[in-house]
């Protein structure tokens, strides 16, 4: 079965630094990977997606990379702020009527 693996250890980072979160997948490459932010007690919020033929995607302070050789996506938040503290979920999808599979998420804590 297809699996999405994220580092279950929380990531603590100093304000102003770049946070880097990792998402690894097994078996075949998904057509694209999605990243979501989830705050405690709330539903996830979609942030970015990257297609398998894209190496990198940016949106404001966010950057996502997709390495099909390593079967890995990296999610970067530059100039991190305490308000960025949340759990970040990676998800694989294949488009059309395919289901989306979520990873367990990585909790990010930005320390002032």
């Amino acid at each position: 079965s297809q699996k999405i693996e994220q580092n279950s250890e929380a990531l603590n980072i100093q304000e102003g630094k770049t946070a880097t979160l990792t998402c690894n997948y097994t078996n075949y490459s998904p057509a694209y990977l999605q990243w979501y932010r989830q705050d405690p007690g709330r539903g996830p919020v979609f942030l970015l997606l990257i297609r398998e033929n894209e190496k990198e995607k940016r949106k404001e302070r966010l950057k996502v990379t997709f390495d099909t050789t390593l079967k890995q996506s990296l999610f970067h938040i530059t100039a991190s702020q305490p308000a960025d503290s949340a759990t970040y979920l990676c998800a694989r999808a294949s488009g059309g009527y395919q289901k989306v599979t979520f990873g367990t998420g990585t909790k990010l804590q930005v320390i002032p």
Partner: protein
Amino acid sequence: EADIYQTPRYLVIGTGKKITLECSQTMGHDKMYWYQQDPGMELHLIHYSYGVNSTEKGDLSSESTVSRIRTEHFPLTLESARPSHTSQYLCASSDRVGYNEQFFGPGTRLTVL
């Protein structure tokens, strides 16, 4: 404003009761989903629908049932609640076109005593 709504936000109920969790979206999305999530754990898909009168079971077995009589409405029902059903239930929708970006509701926190 286009959005997705869930009610109630919190529900505490006794064992054996029948409950219905409501989910509505105003975005006109064809696809809707129910996920179950325990604190600190991953999202598990329990039901999905690709349109009116279409419902399918998800990856995680669930004793709940769903219906899709209207595009905007996707309620989830538990005929007889048990403590093992205690969890957070998240409803989501996505457009027929595009890349299946999921739009989530705020969730219902269910506690069965």
